[in-house]
């Protein structure tokens, strides 16, 4: 069978299997096994556990559970609330100050957590009830946190950047730096939208509520210090010659656990177990998808599908921006249904050669890809952040959360357009810190 036709068939079968309710990782294994048996014979099947083990045999993967522990340990303390309260006391006069504070807190928290759900949960637990109490519409309250939470995978550290780095063999340190400015840009766009929306609503209560004395404003600052200590500590370890990026994650995890225990008095074994349990749950889920996607990509490569698609795209004579547009549409659609890690692992081996041939920068593309994945996090049917918000505020309907998130999806699309117009937004910082790219 022609590898391209076979590739189409694999795609179709994969979608059918994944929509059937079977877990993503097992679905990928089932599809891989099926095609390997039919087109490669039983011998290939023998290799599956070996390949699965081999995909996990990578030191960089360590940083996934570590960056998740960082987020979830701090998320289980009142640190998130402190952070958001501090910002709020300083931003009372700004229209939509409370939303802005929450978004800012999400961005800061994202600088410590590698995943999005933890960011969402940490800030949302306190932020959503507070915003609703002050009269913000449910949609704005929930949507802003859902969207702010997605910054967890754009602002470093980021689990999806690690996965991209492993899949495409690009420097993880460089990828992390590339996410900083686009992350700030996105926060800026989110904030600008929130201010505009609040101002337009004409609800004066939202402008005047809560006023704080200067004493109150300064009094809360020390409570933000542990946060800064963690961020500075991790940055110093990573770029100051103490540890490689993968190793730094462990320093961060230890630092967060210690700070959670010492400063936030998280020493009840039961509470500690909850932190560990949640981290283990999320990490194992992601790592199993990585392993299964490894087997899946072995199948694609073994049946010569990956290679044929790359060759085929190479022969297409299309404008590179049309190509980039098509890639984005593909990624957004894939992101609707699949968790970011699965999309990256399945798409990267096929997309990267295309991207490189068309003359795009792989580091820049990682940022575009990540923003696409952020859209997926707040879009149905599989939008992890939507469910986190749903868990925090069960009485806000998924529909309301979704509609509230829509303007933020618009901001993300705008950010992608800006990145296409000004690629330097992503590539300038890594080049400045680590020298010009390859």
């Amino acid at each position, binding site marked *: 069978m022609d590898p391209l036709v076979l590739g189409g068939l694999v795609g179709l079968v994969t979608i059918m*299997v*994944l*929509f*059937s*309710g*079977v*877990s*993503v990782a*097992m679905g990928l*294994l*089932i599809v891989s*096994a099926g095609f390997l048996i039919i087109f490669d014979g039983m011998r290939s*099947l*023998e*290799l*599956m*556990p*070996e390949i*699965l*083990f081999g995909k*996990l*045999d990578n*030191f960089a*993967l*360590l940083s996934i*559970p570590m960056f998740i*522990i960082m987020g979830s340990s701090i998320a289980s303390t009142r640190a998130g609330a402190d952070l958001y309260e501090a910002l709020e006391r300083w931003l009372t006069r700004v229209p939509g100050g409370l939303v802005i504070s929450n978004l800012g807190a999400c961005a800061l928290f994202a600088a410590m957590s590698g995943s999005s*759900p933890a960011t969402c949960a940490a800030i949302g637990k306190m932020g959503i009830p507070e915003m609703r109490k002050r009269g913000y519409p449910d949609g704005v309250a929930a949507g802003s946190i859902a969207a702010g939470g997605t910054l967890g995978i754009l602002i470093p550290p980021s689990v999806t950047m690690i996965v991209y780095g492993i899949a495409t063999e690009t420097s993880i340190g460089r990828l992390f730096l590339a996410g900083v400015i686009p992350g700030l840009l996105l926060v800026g766009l989110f904030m600008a939208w929130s201010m505009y929306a609040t101002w337009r609503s004409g609800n004066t209560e939202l402008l005047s509520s809560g006023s704080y004395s200067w004493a109150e404003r300064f009094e809360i600052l020390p409570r933000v210090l542990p946060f800064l200590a963690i961020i500075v500590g991790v940055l110093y*370890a990573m770029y100051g010659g*103490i*540890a490689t990026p993968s*190793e730094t*994650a*462990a*320093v961060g*995890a*230890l630092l967060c656990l210690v700070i959670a225990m010492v400063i936030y008095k998280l020493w009840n074994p039961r509470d500690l*177990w909850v932190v*560990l*349990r*949640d*981290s*283990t*749950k*999320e*990490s*194992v*889920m992601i*790592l*199993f998808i990585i392993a299964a996607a490894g087997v899946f990509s072995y199948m694609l490569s073994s049946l010569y599908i990956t290679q044929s698609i790359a060759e085929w795209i190479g022969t297409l004579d299309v404008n590179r921006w049309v190509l980039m547009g098509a890639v984005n549409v593909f990624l957004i659609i894939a992101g609707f*249904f*699949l*968790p970011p890690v699965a999309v990256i692992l399945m798409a990267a081996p096929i997309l990267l050669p295309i991207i490189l041939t068309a003359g795009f920068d792989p580091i820049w593309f990682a940022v575009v890809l990540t923003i696409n994945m952020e859209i997926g996090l707040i879009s149905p*049917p*599989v*939008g992890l952040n939507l*469910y*986190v918000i749903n*868990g925090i505020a069960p009485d806000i309907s*998924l529909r309301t959360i979704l509609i509230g998130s829509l303007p933020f999806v618009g901001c993300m699309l705008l950010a992608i357009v800006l990145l296409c117009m000004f690629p330097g937004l992503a590539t300038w910082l890594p080049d400045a810190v680590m020298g010009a790219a390859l």
Partner: protein
Amino acid sequence: MSGQLSTGALARTGDNLFLRGVAALSTLAGWCSAGMIVAAVAITCQMIFVRFVLNGSTVWQTEAVIYLVIAATLIGLPYVQRLRGHVNVDLIPLALGAKARFYMFLLTSALSIGIIALMLWYGYEYWHFAWDRGWRSDTIWGVRLWIPYLSLPVGFALLLLQLIADLVAVLLGYDNPFGLED
């Protein structure tokens, strides 16, 4: 819709002894998995300390950490299955009526059990091969590879048990197909 990360979903066992036994086993595996992740954190920090502060050699730590994370993943599989933590997309089940959904669940369960049984079988074979031939890793540390490879048969065996328990729970009416309420 699924993909919850922070909800308290859990495999339901009722008072069934088999289901409770499997749940206990999966939970124990979860503790082991979490313990191995903590050990990986500790060893990595120890490595950085030895290298950066003592300027000493660090020859075994990287490898130990890799094997710990792999083992944590594989041994953690049954526990995460019990916690309903493996993300899935249940578009088709949601669109189906109760009866069709039940048969859909039987089908996906059978497929999952089948694939994991296959992984268990070949995983065991691979482990046995490494044991039989006395394979070691090609480093100074030279770990006997059957030790890390052991996590393949053990992890998949426990996951298989949990998957069978999940099927049994639905067949006996303790749990709903795909955990969906009617």
